């Protein structure tokens, strides 16, 4: 029982901290670029803020998956039951898509956001287009989130 629970918790931890690391790097990079633009043109604050926050979503997705795992094993909501080693391993596996995809997609989305912030700095009218480009990277984080959620929901139905 102990090892199974540990593996499930490890999954929740990985989803939170790997996706969180990705988001903090991405938002950090975009934040530096935003600060540079705002030093010259403070009126662009609302536009650069949106672009800067785009890579933050992966961290939220990781948190959501961690919640679902904690709920699935009964750590949240009470009633933590028997967790077999296999079940623990399955929760760990279910966390991996958002953990890995969250880490890398947030870093690359951050780079895209920096470029988008530069585009807005030069041509504020192109905000819509500058937003779509880094938003494309988000697709892969959403796909990973979807698989992680489906997998976690499926584990309960397996009746292991």
């Amino acid at each position: 029982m102990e090892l199974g629970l540990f593996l499930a918790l490890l999954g929740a931890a990985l989803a939170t901290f790997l996706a969180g690391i990705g988001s903090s790097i991405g938002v950090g990079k975009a934040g530096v670029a935003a600060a540079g633009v705002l030093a010259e043109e403070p009126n662009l604050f609302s536009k650069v803020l949106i672009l800067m926050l785009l890579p933050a979503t992966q961290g939220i997705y990781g948190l959501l998956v961690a919640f679902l795992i904690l709920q699935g094993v009964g750590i949240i909501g009470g009633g933590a039951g028997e967790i077999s080693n296999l079940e623990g391993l399955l929760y760990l596996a279910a966390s991996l898509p958002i953990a890995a995809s969250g880490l890398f997609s947030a870093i690359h989305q951050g780079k895209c956001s920096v470029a988008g912030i530069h585009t807005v700095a030069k041509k504020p009218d192109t905000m819509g287009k500058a937003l779509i480009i880094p938003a494309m990277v988000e697709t892969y984080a959403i796909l990973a989130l979807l698989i992680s959620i489906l997998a976690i929901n499926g584990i309960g139905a397996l009746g292991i």
Partner: protein
Amino acid sequence: MKSQDFTYAVSRIRMKETKLLSKKDIDRLISQKDYQSTIRLLSELSFGDDTLDKNQILSYEQNKLWALMGELVEDLSVFDVFRLQNDFHNLKVAVKSVYSDVSPYSMMISGGTLSSEKIYDCVRNRNFKDLGDVFCEVAEASLDTILKTGDGQLCDALIDKACLKAIFDLGEKTNEAVIKDYAELFVASSNIKIAVRGSKLNKPLEFFTKSLSFCNTLDTELLAKNAVKGFDEICTYLSQTKYKESVDYIRKSMSSFEKWCDDLLINGLKKQKYEPFTVGPLVAYILAKQNEIKAVRLILIGKQSGLDDTKISERIRELYV
């Protein structure tokens, strides 16, 4: 070279680029009826200040550029390829000022790796070692030359060669492709200018071997030999190198060749507009700003001397924005 993060600096430069003079602004400046109205328009365009004269406006903008770079970049040594040119200019001024016993400061420029005061003091007190390895030898040699011969041109040739060598060495050392390309083109185009000018003055082979500096895209020995033979031989040699397109411009005039070199450089840098993280956009901005200062200088000189608008337009370099 210490690795630096340029994200913040590039972001500020992107905003600064929007404030560079555009082609339309330059056309408006050229079409002004006289010098005073051009100065007023420059002030409206936030270039200089209408209380300043021509030279003060240009040095004000030059100082502003280097103050901005100092603010943006922790270690300015990444721009040594530009800063050294200012140092060597100041060295020329210092050596000639010591020779003629006049104050050098009004002719010296900022934005070098050493302060103008330090350069002048070291030359005046013959304390060459304090100038560092790059300048020590050439400062002593050029001061001795001018004191013995009184030949300012020879002194300039010595300093120019040392400058070209220093820039070439920096280009070889750096990992930044944009600085490497700039250094190579700068040395090669300077060699071509020396060869053409020397050839027109019928200078001997010794002059060329002493003045031309090694670079990767030209064989300086061959260039020197052809320069002794004559102007047409230089053109024949260049038509076999990567600078073959320059031949038509060289045949037209030296200023048209200089414009071709500057345009080649600025067109090569236009791809830096899409580079968000490296030093490239900062290098491009420095060159763009220097091009802008050159353009304004040309316009103001043209307006002062009553030059025709079309003649001024012909000499204006391509703009980065």
